[in-house]
């Protein structure tokens, strides 16, 4: 059971990190610049925030099948495949939250930062620093989305004992076998895990709120 919990953390943790690397630059670009087709991209990101994990799982499966376009990588039914699927689920969530976080900043503040003589890259960095608290919500939402999803992990991971079995797929498996007590125990552990990670992030986020 310990191994299952650790694999869950490993897969969803790395998927969250990777989705931050994609989602934050994407979200801040969409929030701070204007270019033709920007609204289309924003609507795609918003759609991605609500994309059903099973559909993502199906698409990733098609790509990773042995005779699929990326079959040569032999990733199907591996933790790597699960990370890929979870990144695709999480990065639009992170991008969407980042977009909202930088857009709610005072546009005049941006003018002031520009007036201080910063370059474009420095400006984006300062705006992200300014939005750091709402950005933690992006981390929480991204992690929450992937640690709790089951459809994609099942489809691209396969719920193989000792290899790709994670908390959510294990709960589904035990439940279907009638092992309700084990399913409940796993659920409690999963909830506790989500709570602890969120608690840590919330502590950081709310640290400076008390005056």
């Amino acid at each position, binding site marked *: 059971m310990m191994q299952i919990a650790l694999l869950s953390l490993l897969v969803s943790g790395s998927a969250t990190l990777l989705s931050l690397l994609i989602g934050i630059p994407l979200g801040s670009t969409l929030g701070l610049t204007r270019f033709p087709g920007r609204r289309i991209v924003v609507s795609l990101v918003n759609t991605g925030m609500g994309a059903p994990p099973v559909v993502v799982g199906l698409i990733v499966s098609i790509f990773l099948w042995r005779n699929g376009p990326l079959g040569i990588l032999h990733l199907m039914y591996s933790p790597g495949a699960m990370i890929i699927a979870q990144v695709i689920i999480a990065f639009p969530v992170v991008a969407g939250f980042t977009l909202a976080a930088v857009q709610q900043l*005072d546009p*005049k*503040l941006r*003018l*002031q*930062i*520009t*007036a*201080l*003589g*910063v*370059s474009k890259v*420095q400006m984006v960095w*300062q705006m992200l*620093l*300014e939005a750091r608290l709402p950005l933690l919500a992006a981390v929480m939402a991204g992690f929450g989305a992937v640690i709790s999803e089951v459809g994609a992990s099942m489809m691209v991971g396969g719920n193989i004992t000792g290899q790709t079995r994670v908390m959510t797929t294990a709960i589904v498996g035990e439940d279907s076998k009638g092992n309700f007590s084990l399913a409940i125990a796993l659920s409690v552990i999963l909830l506790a895990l989500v709570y602890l990670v969120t608690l840590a992030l919330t502590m950081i986020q709310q640290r*400076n709120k008390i*005056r």
Partner: protein
Amino acid sequence: MNSIPLTAPRCVLEANNLSIILGGKKVLEISSLQVRTNEVLVIIGPNGSGKTTLLLSLALLLKPASGTISYQGHSINNAAEILALRRRLAVVFQEPLLLNTTVWNNITLGLRVRKISGEEIKARTEKWLERFGIASLAQRQSKTLSGGEAKRVSLARAFALQPEVLFLDEPFNGLDSPTRQALMEDFGNVLRETNVTTVMVTHDRNEALMMAHRVMVLMNGRIRQDGTPSQVFSYPIDEEVAGFVEAGNIMHGSITSQTEGLALVDIGGQQLEAVSELAAGTNVTMFLHDDDITLSIPQSEIKHSSARNQYIGKVVKAFPIGSQIRVTVDCGISLVALITRRSWEEMGLKQGQTLIASFKASSIHLIPRR
């Protein structure tokens, strides 16, 4: 170093044929504007006149639809030049616009991006925190500051950059009266000490009177008048400008004595009484609103009046403004009074007529002269 031309004051910033279009509407059209080295230029105008837009475009924060802006004779073209030049300027906005971090980090950000050495950053930051009386706030989070404190931080942040030109957009707006007064005093002293070339935008003519070497009146996106404060306020170019600057009497003099808050002011040989706490010997600019002056025909004897100042003079000029008439009376000093057309008619006034101009000591506004 360029040699300084002897004929004209050196010009640090110049805008030519500048036009700015916002939302399809031309909001600014400036044929020519120069900012001279070490001057304090105050641009005044009513709300919506384009003041802020003009300031932003001069500070290279708003791209004009057409026209050129040049610094020290070089015109600015590409993004790299704009960035390099922005690093020689500083802008203070109406709101303090501080970053959500400590006061110290707020002040050092502009210095850090300029790649100034750590020692120098520390020295300058300490100096300007001290100068604006906020040294004790250095480690405070900006969010915990009061409005006045935040404003001081934003001013210290600008001065720490040692800009070649300092831009200010209504910097004293939105502060309560004592805070505002204290800040204006400190800011005025710093301006005098640093001698930094300054462009300030405001709708408050008292600020212009206190700070400006030169005043520009901006209305409907065009410069309507450009001159010294006393030229602009005493001799507005037309009715519209006069209506905005609420033209009054501006005179220079000095306080000869002051007892219990009542000062005797010498203006061109005439003694005036004014309510003021300023000490004897202070050189002052006197401001007297034109509709605070009452004109009356001398009767057999002058009645007792609560107006501390009464002078006999002659009407030298009368100029109608709408339903009112601006009457210039020569009483040794030249006073401009605003009276209604009806008063003018009922009193049967005419040029050369002798009358009494009276006004209260509390109507006079005295400002120490720079």
